[in-house]
């Protein structure tokens, strides 16, 4: 195995290049919630990404945690920070966070190499949006997907709606968004979201096998094909940030976040 020196081991995520594949491992307990720490480390990865690409033809993003790929935005941090500021300042902070994470996800989305999200367990909200920025989603049969944002009085804010619209039929998008229901890997494959469903514990192996196959093709051709078939919906992504911020300033959102953060129930994600 050829191991590059271009490696990083952070508190929320790590990356390394192995066999010409960049592997990003998420490992922030309890379930890779995306807050300020994760964003800072994602931005570090984004800064390093250009250099890493010189020695790689593929990127795999996966989670080292048993609980799942990623439970989405760190709502506890969001609520706590919002409570410590006045409303205008909190809204400015939210917009800044969204714009920063959009920059990272847009970079992954448009990368001139093939990107794979290898997901298992909880793949909710922002975690689902991170997976959607990738070219392929390979799922463990125990993966579960959900956009629960409407339950909080919000819409997905990390690019979820434009990327879902790009990949799926509008009726399916409406179902997933407007019901906020969670669904399993089999369903995700049926609707065309997931390219492979594999046995429990096999997702990283399957992603690595796929990445090895991708390495057999001419890289420039693969990049040209990707540019042709996967345009970045920049205008809709910007509109999504605006709509999210408009909704975020309403009292219902603060109440929804408070209820979620303070809940001790086994199903806190249900309204």
């Amino acid at each position: 195995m050829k191991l590059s020196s271009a490696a990083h081991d952070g508190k929320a995520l790590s990356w390394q290049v192995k066999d010409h594949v960049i592997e990003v491992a998420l490992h922030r307990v309890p379930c890779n919630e995306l807050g300020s720490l994760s964003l800072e480390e994602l931005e570090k990865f984004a800064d390093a990404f250009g250099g890493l690409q010189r020695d790689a033809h593929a990127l795999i993003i996966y989670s080292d945690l048993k609980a799942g790929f990623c439970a989405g935005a760190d709502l506890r941090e969001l609520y706590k920070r919002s409570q410590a500021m006045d409303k205008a300042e909190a809204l400015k902070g939210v917009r800044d966070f969204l714009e920063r994470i959009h920059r990272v996800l847009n970079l992954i989305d448009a990368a001139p190499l093939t990107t794979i999200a290898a997901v298992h367990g909880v793949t909710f909200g922002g975690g689902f949006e991170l997976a959607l920025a990738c070219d392929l989603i390979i799922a463990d049969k125990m993966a579960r997907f959900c956009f629960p944002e409407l339950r909080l009085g919000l819409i997905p804010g990390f690019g979820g709606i434009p990327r879902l619209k790009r990949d799926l039929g509008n009726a399916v998008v409406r179902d997933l968004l407007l019901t906020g229901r969670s669904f399993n890997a089999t369903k995700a494959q049926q609707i065309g979201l997931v390219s492979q469903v594999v046995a429990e514990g096999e997702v990283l192996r399957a992603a690595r096998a796929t990445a090895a196959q991708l390495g057999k093709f001419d890289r420039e051709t693969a990049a040209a094909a990707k540019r042709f078939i996967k345009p970045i919906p920049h205008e809709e992504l910007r509109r999504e940030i605006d709509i999210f911020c408009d909704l975020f300033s309403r009292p219902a959102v603060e109440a929804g976040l408070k209820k979620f953060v303070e809940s001790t129930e086994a199903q806190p994600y249900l309204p």
Partner: protein
Amino acid sequence: MKANDMPIADQTLDEILSLASLHFKVPREKLNPDDDFFKALGIDSLQTLELLTRLENHFHVELPDYELQGVTDFRTLAGKIQARL
């Protein structure tokens, strides 16, 4: 009674109890149809999602989580699954 001889609803319930016992390491004989499964299995919110996914995979059904809101016992859960078979 063998599993094959059971009425379908009872068989569904039996399969749920066996599946829950196996995956959450609780002896099968300690699980009863009217038990609160959150308490009987000692599961948190993430494990509740795991149970839901295991049930969907086992029975090859879709169980929208909003239909299970307020469902806490194995028997009612079996009824919800039965309605989707």
